[in-house]
Every structure is written in structure tokens, then in C-alpha cells.
């Protein structure tokens, strides 16, 4: 009964199809797309956004699917996080994404929030970003003019700023099959055991060739204006022999690749240190998936 926030007035549109949504997006000035609304509605209540027009796509079944096309997994941008989490395709083929989803928000939130929404909100702390970055996902951006594909690594431009043009909608996330025999892991450090924003989160994907690191992919969130890949660290590990010393020496580079800030959750210094620790741990866990055990300590 009580009203705690004033949702600004706006025009509400509920398109019947994706095409209609794209047309509205093209025609309407100052508009926002509503998917799960778990970020947008709150942001409107606190005055971060004051769109004139809101285009609701939450009911569009065209955007809700998880498909395995034999070489990639395609996820409709309107698919809820819980649906993705429960998908056997995802759990089997790209467990690193499921790991991230498992500790995102709560069950209630995951049943509403969508993967497209999490990406387009472009929070530095977006937890779906690091796994999709190490999986080298492609994003399908559609407008009435057609579609284009952008690698996720090029999608984020800054906090809440993306590659999307004014009239474009993220419609699909295409995740190529990971290399065979890839080990992958998502690790998140928050302020409590569940329902928490990350202080830092890391995803890794590793393959081995001739007892040496082959493919090494590392992505982090909450340590820069956008989620990012730590290319230099990846590069420095490639072709190196697999042992704890090598890993510990090289993951230190992560600190040079990130630009964390201090906020109410943690200091920049702590984030730097933890980026190194979590990257190392995620690499070790990825190797464990490949039955490579190193290091003296049991986890």
C-alpha cells in the first residue's frame, strides 16, 4: 500500500513480435527496453534513467530459447537466468556459465532476470560476462536494418555503456563449442556466501598441449569500468610448462591489466590482490577438470 519510490511517468509499449519491437525501438526517441526489469525498474525508481518510452519485450517467446546447433549454443536474449542454469546443454557443454548463474542473485530474481538484460545493463559487476568472455561468445545485435555480430569482448564500452546503437536490440548470444578438453571455472568473491555482488569474479578456460598451457583465457569483473579479458596474462602463460611457480609468477600480471576502484564493497588494493588469488585458483580448478593436479595444497 505504501509507495516508497516514484516511478517516473513513461509510455509503455508491448510489441507483439520481435519485428514490432525493433520498429518501435527505431521510431521512439529516448526509450528503454524492459526485459526482466530487475535492474531497469529499480534504476528508474532511483532516477538513474528517465526514459520517455519503455518497450516491454519480456513476453516475446521468440527471444526465449536455448539451442544446440552442433557447433554452438544459441541462447535467446530473453531467456531467464534460471532457465539457462537448469539447461542440461549449458551444464554439460559450458559449465562455467552455469557456475556463474548458480550464485547470481536469488532463485526469485533468476526467474525474472534475463541474460540479455544482464549484459545490456553493462554493470562492471555483471556475472554472466566473465564466463561468456572466456567462451568467446558472439552477440547478435538486431535492428530494422538487419543484424550484426559482435564479440562480447567488444560489447562493453563503460559502466552502463555498450556497443548497442540507439535502434539496436541484443537478440541472441552465440557460444561456440569450447575447444575439446578445455577446463573451465568461475570463482566469485563477495561479502557473504550468497545473494551478493562480487568484489571480484574470475572465469578461466584452459587447454593443454604437450604438458604445456595452450589456450588460456581469463576474464574478470568488478575490477574495471567493464568486465574484461586479461590478455597479457593469458599470453604470458601460453606455452609455459604447467607448475605452480609458473602460474603464480604469471598471474601477478593481472594486477596490471585491471583498474579497480575503492567503494563500499572493497578497496582497490584488495581487489587487485584478490584478482591475482582468484585467477590463480580458477586456473588450478580448470586444470583439475583436466585431471591435472598441481600445487602442494588441497582445496
Amino acid at each position, binding site marked *: *500500500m*505504501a*509507495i*516508497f*519510490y*516514484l516511478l517516473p511517468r513513461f509510455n509503455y509499449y508491448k510489441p507483439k513480435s520481435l519485428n514490432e519491437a525493433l520498429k518501435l525501438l527505431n521510431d521512439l526517441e529516448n526509450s528503454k527496453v524492459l526485459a526482466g526489469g530487475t535492474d531497469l525498474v529499480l534504476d528508474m525508481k532511483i532516477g538513474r534513467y528517465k526514459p520517455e518510452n519503455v518497450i516491454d519485450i519480456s513476453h516475446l517467446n521468440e527471444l526465449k530459447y536455448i539451442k544446440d546447433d552442433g557447433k554452438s549454443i544459441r541462447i535467446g536474449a530473453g531467456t531467464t537466468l534460471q532457465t539457462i542454469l537448469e539447461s542440461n546443454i549449458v551444464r554439460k557443454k559450458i559449465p562455467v556459465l552455469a557456475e556463474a548463474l548458480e550464485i547470481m542473485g536469488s532463485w526469485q530474481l533468476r526467474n525474472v532476470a534475463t541474460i540479455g538484460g544482464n549484459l545490456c545493463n553493462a554493470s562492471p559487476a555483471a556475472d554472466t560476462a566473465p564466463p561468456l568472455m572466456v567462451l568467446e561468445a558472439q552477440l547478435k545485435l538486431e535492428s530494422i536494418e538487419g543484424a550484426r555480430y559482435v564479440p562480447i569482448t567488444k560489447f562493453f564500452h563503460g559502466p552502463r555503456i555498450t556497443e548497442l546503437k540507439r535502434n539496436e536490440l541484443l537478440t541472441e548470444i552465440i557460444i561456440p563449442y569450447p575447444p575439446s578438453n578445455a577446463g573451465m571455472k568461475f570463482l566469485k*568473491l563477495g*561479502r*557473504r*556466501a*550468497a*545473494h*551478493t*555482488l562480487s*568484489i571480484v569474479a574470475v572465469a578461466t578456460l584452459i587447454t593443454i598441449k604437450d604438458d604445456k598451457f595452450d589456450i588460456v583465457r581469463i576474464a574478470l569483473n568488478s575490477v574495471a569500468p567493464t568486465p574484461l579479458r586479461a590478455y597479457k596474462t593469458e599470453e604470458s602463460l601460453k606455452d609455459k610448462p604447467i607448475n605452480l611457480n609458473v602460474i603464480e609468477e604469471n598471474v601477478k600480471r593481472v594486477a596490471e591489466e585491471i583498474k579497480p576502484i575503492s567503494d*563500499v*564493497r*572493497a*578497496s582497490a588494493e*584488495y581487489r587487485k*590482490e*584478490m584478482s591475482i*588469488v*582468484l585467477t590463480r585458483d580458477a586456473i588450478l580448478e580448470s586444470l583439475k577438470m583436466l585431471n591435472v593436479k598441481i600445487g602442494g*595444497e588441497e582445496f
Partner: protein
Amino acid sequence: MIPLSEDPFYLIEKWLKAKEFLVIGKSIQRIDAFEKVTGKAKFMEDYVLPNMVYVKLVLSSEPHARIKAIDVGRALKIRGVVGVLTAKDIPGENQVGYALPDQPLLAEGKVRYAGEPIALVAAEEPEIAFEASLAIKIDYEPLPPLLDPLEAMKRTDVLVHDERGSNIAFTTRVRKGDVTEGFRVADVIVKNEYRTQHQEHAYLETEGALAIPEIGGRITIISCAQYPHLAQAITARVLGIPASRIRIVQPYIGGGFGGKDDMGPLVAAKAALAAYKIGRPALLIYSREESMKSHCKREASIIRYKSGATKEGKLTAIEVEIIMDTGAYANRGPFILWRATMHASGPYEVPNAKVDGYCVYTNKVYQGSFRGFGNPDVQFAAEAQMDELANKLGMDPVEFRLKNILRPGSLTITSQLLDHSVGIAEALEIVAQRASWKEKRALYSKMKGRFRRGIGVACAWHGISTSRGVPDWSNAFIKIEKDGSIHVFTGIVEIGQGSPTTSHVQIVSEVLGVPVNYINMYFGTSDAPDTGATHASRGTSIGAIGVLVAAAKLRERLNKLAAELLECRPEEVIVRNGKAFVKGREEKYIMWKDLIKEAYARGIEMSATGFFFLPKGTFDHEKGQGFAYPAYSYIVNIAEVEVDIETGIVRVLRMWPALASGRIINPLAVEGQIEGAIAQGMGLALMEKVEFDERGVVINANFTDYVVPTIMDMPKVEKPVYVEDLFKYGPFGAKGVGEMALIPTPAAIANAVTHAIGIRVTELPLTPEKVYFLIRKRKMKG
């Protein structure tokens, strides 16, 4: 002369001696359980009315400023706005300070913290009230804000309260023996400074009230207060009308933890002010952000603690300085400080003690009641000191504690003789065994590697009832209806803890010998006699004395009647399952309903009050010596933790609680209190902290940035150990439980973390970041 059969002392003692019980000590299901799990239970917000106006707060944006002008013109012009109320619209007194007369209901002349209520806007629709609240312009003349209590103590050029001449709101002291001599004879001395932080109550239901004008100039308030009669008194004062015209009715309350003890009356008064001035029902509910910014918090403390002991392990002296940041208003700060001061020794006997307490004003949201009431901070410091002394002496921490622990016959820090009901030594011995303390302590001391385990112990004591000679009483009104059903009226509130819905029901059922479903509890209302507040772990311990006494009076009358009818002596009458019979001759009986019918027919009064005024001693405020509390509840918590030394993450794995709080009336309800208190104490220990910016504005006034523990953070809480050290005035010997398990939880966790990492922690919360840098600093030092 009161006849013996109506004398509360006689009746309390008589039932204290009972050896066999029908329902006392049993885990009966709470009578509100079904309603609550099915979502049918009504809370304040469920009582909406037609023709109601919606009230919205206007809060100060400034931490410290003079109010030059409040422009309500634009707001009043908005269609649907019914009224705007400021300090000048208050017909009675704009004064609601509990301990000191320093706090207005609505800011007047000056604001003292960002978030302070300045005005109320009432409108036909909540959206309109919201919009109008933004249209109110306040012209501030900024003053320099004082944020650091240590600085505020020294400053007199800037005053939070000009008229007081100092930023020190209140001081307390204890002087026992001679501390100089005590330290002279000590073989080891430990000195440290401890810091604790502001904690948010984070109740599920925020503050609110619905005030309804009634016939005869009366106002009924559906409120969320922990003390209905205080809400009544404060509202009457603010409106300038007799208290008897104010009726407080309370549905179920969505959590209080002390916060609604302080806030309940203030919010009731605000809603009542709007209803009174506008003449229509008025609903005020705080948003989460409003609540977090403007309601009182657990105090932040700085505690400087020096203690000494002999090599035999006997404490010789303590010297303690307690500085509490009370924020903008004293509120209950002075009472909180007194409690911390008089509990500063921990539950130990110490011959020499010097304690000084300071309650200091700053331009931050004010300190207030919060489960534990100043005690968790001081037990955190005292218990760290105990571990450090034991460490220096090369003694086991449990063994060292047992050498000093309070026992029957001990003198407390205020030189109060504890003549009975002191079960902590036994509790500590049993729980240390259960937790395999010795083995784990030894094993974990040798741990290497990344994940280090630690085990820590902390004891605590907590005075029951108001402190010193401050009057405290219990009461209740019980009437047995003609059909034999029983109506119990109490001011004790159902706030989630379940005392009026379990222990009170059990006590009435036990004393009258009727099944629990005969009993209807009417609780949390000013229609009942003043029962005191539902705070200070007193809902059952003190609150239910009245219920016991009233029921016992009725039982005496009924026994006499039944004896006549059954031709036996009154003491031979047994009442069980709604049937009165002669002891040993169950065939000679009368049904409960017939007995009551007969009582009505013969003109025997079937209603009774249970007033009981607690006897207290004297207290010398100059020396801080004398009678502090009628009894103490005691608790021991043992915590087992694991620390990831590479990230600083602390996981609490297990907790072993041991409680010496007299009779356990409902073990299930007590377990609920223990588990909840451990969760809240763990939040204080590990993660919860209200953060302020450089102007004193709360920057984490939401649950994104203010984190409380989740179920995933919870340790395994072992079955509690109970030592039933009966308290002579408690109902069936019960003492308080509600706050107990929280009090030593931060201390136990901090001691366990210290054990795990080998570095003394002195500041809460133990966030991963804090623990990590402590470890790294040590590493760098080598």
C-alpha cells in the same frame, strides 16, 4: 493485609517449587505458527482503511545545519495534498528524548543528522505524498558536522546541542577497590583498544503506524512498537491530550531487535499527529532507505581495556574506558552506556575495577536499542582480554576463565552479592567438553597451510530487568469467561520471538490446568495493564510474571471452590486437562467448565490482575557500586571457524551455545532465539557495518550495499546446553533468553579467528579484506 492466596511473592515461590509439569519445559507449537506459515497473519500494513491519508516523511539532507525556513507553499498547491506538518504544528510537546530531553519529534531550529525527520506530508494518494515531499524546500544554513566521537569530545566550539555546552551527553563510572594496587600485584598485564561499528536492525518490516481518529476524541493507533504503553505516553505528550485517549493496538510485528523499542513510539506519534490534525486515518510507513537513514543504530564503540592477573591465573584489576558514538541524540544511549559499564568485567570476579563511560554526540544517525544493548561490544573487549591474559600466562582460555568465573557467593564489579541463580561455571564446563575444546584447541594451534581452523570461547552475562533502582514491574489481566475459555491481556508484544504465543500460554495452561487451546492471548496492547516493554530479554522473564501471578490467584480461588465441591482440602485439588479432581482419587472430579459455572453462580470473581513490583537495592552513582540487577542470565558460546589466509574469508563452521538462564519454558522457542541471535551476532562480527560519507550521510542505506548473513553463511548450531539456575522471581524460575546468544557471538568468533591466524583481532567487522590485510601486515613484518 493481602491474604496469602493473593500475595505475588507467595504465589511466585509456590509455583517455583513445582516438581512436575504438564506443559512447562515442553516444545509446544506456538499459537501463531499456522497463521504465519500460511501467510494469513496480519501485520500493520494489512489494516488499510478507506478514507485514509498517506503520510510521507521529509528528511534532512544536511548533517548539521540551522533551518532558516521551510517553504511548504508549492507542496500545498499540489492537488490531493491534504496537509504538511512541521514542528510548529505540534499541539503538545515536541520532545521525545527517552534518557535526556534533547530530541524533537520533528526538527526544530536545527538539524543534527542527515536523515532527521523535518516534516510530514499527507495526501490522498501515496504518489501525491511522494511528489509533494519533493516540493518542500528547506533553507539550511550549514554548520560544520562533527563525525568522530574522539574529536567531538574535545571540541566545544562546535556543539551538536548548543544548550548542553558539551558534546559529552552522559558519563558513567564504576570504582571498586584500588586499581593501582591491583595492577601492582599483577604478574601479567594486557592493554588493547577495541572498536565496534554501527549495526542496522534490518527487520523485515520497516517502521510504520496507522492512526485512526475515533469517537470521543480518542485515537486508536495500529502500531509497531515494542512497548505499547510508551507509544501511548509519547503520543499523548506530543498531542497534548490525556494518555487515556490513546489506544495502542498491535498486530504481529515483523521484527524489532530493539529498533522498534525506540522507533515505535516516535512513529506512532507522527501518524497520530497527522490523524489528529487532519481528522482522518493516517498511514505512515518508512521505506527501507528512510528506515536505514533515520532510525537508531547499534552504537559504535571505542573501548580501551587494561587488565591484570597473577601467575596463578586470578584477575587482579581492570581499567576500562568506553566511548560510545551516540550520534545526534542521546536516545537510550545513557542506558546503553550504563549496561556496558556495569558488565565491563565480563562474568568474572575482579577485586579492583575502574570503568569510565562516555556517551558522545556526533552529527550522525543516533545510537539506540539493539539486542544486547551495549553488552556485545564490551564482552568482545573483555573476552579478548581474557584470551590475551591466558595466552601470556600460558594457560588454557577455558581453564583461566573457570578460575575467575562468577559463582554463587561472588561479588560483581559493582560489589553486588550474587546469592543464587549463577550457573555459568557449569555451563562452561559442559560445553567445553561437548565441543572437544581441549583437543581442537591443541590440534588447530599446529595447523599450517591455506585454510586455518580456530576455536574460540566467549562467556557473557546480562542483567535481567532495568538496572540499578530503576523501577520495573510486571502485570497482566486474566479473565475466565463463563464458558471456561480464558482471556489473557498483556502488553508484551509478539515480535517474532513468541513469548506471548508460547511461554505465556504454557504458564497459564500449567497454572490453571487447562489445555492450551482454552487460552486466547490478547497481547501488545495498551488495553492491557502496563506490562513494561518487550525488550531486554524480559518478555517471559519479567513480562510473564504478571501472567503467572494472575493465573495463580485464580487457581487459588478455584482450588478453594473445588475443595468445597469435592469435599477435600484445597491443596489436594489437581486440575489437569480441563478436569479438577482429588489427588489420588480421579473418580472424584468436576469438569473445568462446570467449575467455572459454579464460580460465577457463587459470586467468585473470575478475573485477576498479576501486578508484581520487583524488589531492588540501592546504587551509588558516584562510585558505580551497589545493586545492579535482580539477576543475570549467562551464556557461553564456543565458535569454530576456518580462515582462508589467502583471501581473508572467515567461515564460521560450528557454534556450541550453553545457556544458564533459569527455567527453559519452551526449548524450541529458545532454540529459535539462539539461532537467530547467532546469525545477527555473526553479522556484527563478520560483515555488517553502516558506512558514512565524509558528511556523515549513510551511504549503504539499502540491502545491496548493507549485507546481512544469509542461510548459506550460517554455521551448524549445536543443541544448546541448558543449566537451569532458577531465578527466585522469574516465572517458574525463568530468566531472559532473547538477547543472550548474540552477546558473546562476536567475541567467540573474534577469539576463534585470532586462534586461527595467530593475530589478535581488535576491530569489527572481520571482513575478508580486514582479515587479509592483518595477515599480510604480519607476513611483511616476517
